[in-house]
């Protein structure tokens, strides 16, 4: 059985937890461990309680745990927030931690502020001292910490932080022996990547040339990542005045020939609904990355949920088709975003990549990103030099309901992309036969589109007593729990719409099913029932803003399988 050790650092926002945590994860990774990083933080720039959990072990780790084996306490607040066992090691500057008096844990006292003062550094340098102490307690090679500190900071800052870390390291090594933890696996060097990073890089690989949106957690880091890449990779990234502008600008750009995408959370997507319908009727291809968080309205900005599934599938008035990917891993974020850009241009439809805070902002290890096909732009009109003034029947069917796209500027390709119902050339029309023909043509895309979507997959032993049914990031949590119990297997939906529901039905039949979702109403269950008639009675739902922790899944599965 694999073993997992949980390390965690916590303190107020502004204490550098979100840079220190991922950096220490890289040290563990370089030491040969498999690591997973999970951040929790309130929507505050200063104060509150931030923490970053690293679960690491001798086999792949993909989800957070409740237990804490080692904790770095940067402020008193953590003693109100965290549950320490007698076996937990708590590293702290105990002379300055007033609430620590009655904790049962093993206290590792390190004079964090004393060392900072001695070196005449800024307060935030206490993090480096603490990392040094943790590295010593875990028996890690100091050189690896030094290397990562060098990479993380500018030269001068790096130097003093290394000194600080060294003092922390030595102070612990002199007084304590190395704690018991799993042996490193010496796994191959791998990426340490968040869902949003993987999504962004997948988009760049897929030839994205235009991205416009308005910032909203947990999707903002897609905007930040892509913005950083504009000059080098040739893409236009715009932070617009609001999400309405964000999607309309992307639609304008896509109409004009760009590969366009937008990204937001549910609240921003609410503003984009109208633009979604615009993309649908004008058959302008766009991709939307929507990262879910608890709502409605502003809800809980920095926490996770899967409450927007039915919303993205049904949003905007009237009827039209759209594709919805629900990636369950960073590899799928990368691949599906690449594929989404192709699919949008192949079928001239809006395509969603549905994420959530857990997947968007947690770190996962990936050996490499999956192979992708080529960038494919679908049917494009080449132009007609002979008749430069001619209108083109853009909305007539070429094959499978799909028309032929024209990039403005092309001779002989004049047409109108209209938000009104329209003729083949795009002229506004509300004639009954025109409407009927256009609706039917647009829906003819559904069949071939369905064949292009990834199908649900079964993970684990075929004959387990219980089968969880899930979509999106829950896959990562179940893969982790599977290491600890053989009482379940699971079916993961990497996409939810459209699907070959006949095939899904066959896959679901004859099993002891239980839906597992990060929402209150079991939305996937509803969609399955609507499309297959199968009503899954058992549910395992969580809607407190947190992902499923490993221990919760294991005990639920063992109980349910009794």
């Amino acid at each position: 059985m694999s073993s997992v050790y949980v390390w965690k650092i916590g303190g107020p926002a502004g204490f550098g937890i979100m840079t220190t945590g991922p950096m220490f994860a890289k040290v563990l990774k370089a030491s040969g461990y498999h690591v997973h990083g999970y951040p929790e933080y309130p929507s505050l720039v200063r104060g509150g309680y931030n923490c970053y959990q690293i679960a690491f072990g001798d086999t792949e780790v993909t989800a957070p745990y409740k237990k804490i084996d080692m904790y770095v306490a940067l402020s008193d607040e953590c003693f109100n927030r965290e549950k320490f066992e007698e076996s937990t090691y708590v590293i702290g500057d105990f002379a300055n931690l007033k609430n620590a008096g009655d904790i049962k844990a093993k206290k590792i006292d390190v004079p964090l502020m004393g060392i900072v003062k001695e070196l005449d550094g800024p307060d935030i340098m206490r993090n480096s001292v603490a990392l040094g102490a943790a590295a010593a307690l875990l028996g890690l090679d100091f050189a690896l910490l030094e290397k990562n500190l060098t990479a993380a900071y500018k030269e001068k800052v790096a130097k003093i932080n290394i000194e600080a870390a060294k003092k922390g390291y030595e102070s612990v090594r002199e007084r304590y022996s190395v704690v018991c933890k799993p042996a490193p696996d010496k796994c191959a060097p791998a990426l340490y990547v968040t869902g949003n990073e993987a999504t962004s890089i997948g988009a760049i690989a897929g030839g994205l040339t235009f991205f416009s949106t308005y910032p909203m957690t947990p999707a903002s880091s897609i905007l930040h990542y892509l913005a950083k890449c504009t000059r080098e990779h040739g893409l236009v990234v715009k932070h617009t005045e609001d999400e309405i502008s964000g999607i309309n600008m992307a639609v304008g750009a896509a109409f004009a020939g760009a590969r366009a995408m937008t990204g937001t959370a549910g609240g921003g997507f609410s503003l984009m609904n109208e633009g979604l319908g615009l993309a649908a009727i004008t058959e302008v291809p766009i991709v939307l990355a929507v990262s879910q968080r608890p709502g409605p309205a502003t809800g809980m900005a920095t926490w996770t949920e899967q409450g927007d599934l039915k919303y993205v599938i049904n949003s905007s008035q009237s009827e039209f088709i759209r594709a919805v990917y629900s990636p369950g891993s960073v590899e799928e974020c990368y691949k599906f975003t690449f594929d989404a850009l192709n699919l949008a241009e192949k079928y001239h439809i809006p395509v969603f990549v549905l994420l959530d805070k857990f997947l968007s902002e947690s770190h996962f290890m990936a050996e490499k990103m999956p192979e992708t096909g080529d960038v494919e732009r679908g049917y494009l009109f080449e132009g007609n030099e002979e008749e430069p003034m001619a209108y083109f029947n853009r909305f007539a069917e070429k094959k499978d309901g799909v028309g032929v796209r024209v990039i403005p500027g092309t001779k002989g390709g004049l047409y109108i992309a209209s938000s009104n119902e329209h003729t083949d050339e795009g002229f506004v029309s509300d004639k009954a036969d025109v409407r009927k023909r256009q609706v039917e043509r647009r829906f003819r895309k559904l069949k071939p589109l369905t064949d292009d979507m990834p199908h649900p997959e079964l993970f684990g032993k075929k004959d387990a007593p219980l089968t969880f049914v899930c979509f999106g990031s829950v896959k990562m949590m179940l893969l982790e729990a599977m290491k600890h119990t053989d009482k379940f297997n699971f079916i993961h939906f990497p996409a939810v719409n459209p699907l070959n529901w006949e095939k899904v039905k066959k896959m679901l039949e004859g099993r002891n099913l239980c839906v597992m979702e990060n929402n209150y109403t079991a939305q996937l269950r509803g969609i399955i029932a609507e499309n297959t008639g199968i009503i899954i009675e058992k549910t395992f739902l969580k809607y407190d803003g947190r992902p499923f922790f490993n221990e919760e899944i294991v005990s639920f599965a063992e109980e349910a399988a009794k």
Partner: protein
Amino acid sequence: MKALDYNTTQKPVWCPGCGNFAIWNGIKKALAEAGIEPHKLALVSGIGCSGKMINHVRAYGFHGLHGRTMPVATGIRLANPEMKVLVNGGDGDGYGMGVGHFVHAMRRNVDLTYIVHNNKVYGLTTGQASPTNEIGSPSKSTPFGVVDEPLNPIAIAIDAGATYVARGFSGDSEQLAELILGGLNHNGFALIDVFQPCVTFGGKYQYEYYQERVVKIENHDVTDADSALALSKTKDKLPIGLFYKVEGRPSYNEMHPEIEKAQVRKRDVTGLLEELV
């Protein structure tokens, strides 16, 4: 190119006498004079009677959503530097629903020409007051008279960063065509606000109303923002013509050197992935 070459097969559905006809003719005339080929022109329109223009001018067209012309036009301009962008919308569309986008597009100095059919009412939805309607005027949605202060689009445009600001009148089609031509030839954001009588729902705002009040702008330094602002606030008379024009401020697309490299193709992301190891 001749003005007639820009006709399409679609017959206008505007009410006979509507001010939109003069704008239509002005556009075609200006396009012909500027020598813009239809396949190099992206016509964007909003929703309203004004937006129907899209059916009647031979060009690539994007008939967008109510109030959302500016972001669509900006996206087109940024993605496809080959295209000239001409936008038509109503005063409800652009100054009501879309006022935020309007202001931001001007701040950005997006290179486009924006013609606002300012009839002081919502025509297509049969006569509610628009944001430029004056206090006291009755309309379907304000039976006891408008109580909101009217918005001054010329002043807003000068202040927000538009680099070509003009006002035309449907009753003076010659000047109108000249102003549109000036907008098309301008590099940067060109606003042409047009007094466009709505003969069906326009209430008092008919041709005679304007004919009594309009005066052509003369002896005015168009590069002087302060006097242009003062002119826009003239009370009893309604100045028409060019209020403001500055050259040399880079337009939005010029601020985006990455456009040159933006090509839809599979990219090698090895370097980006290596940064994450």
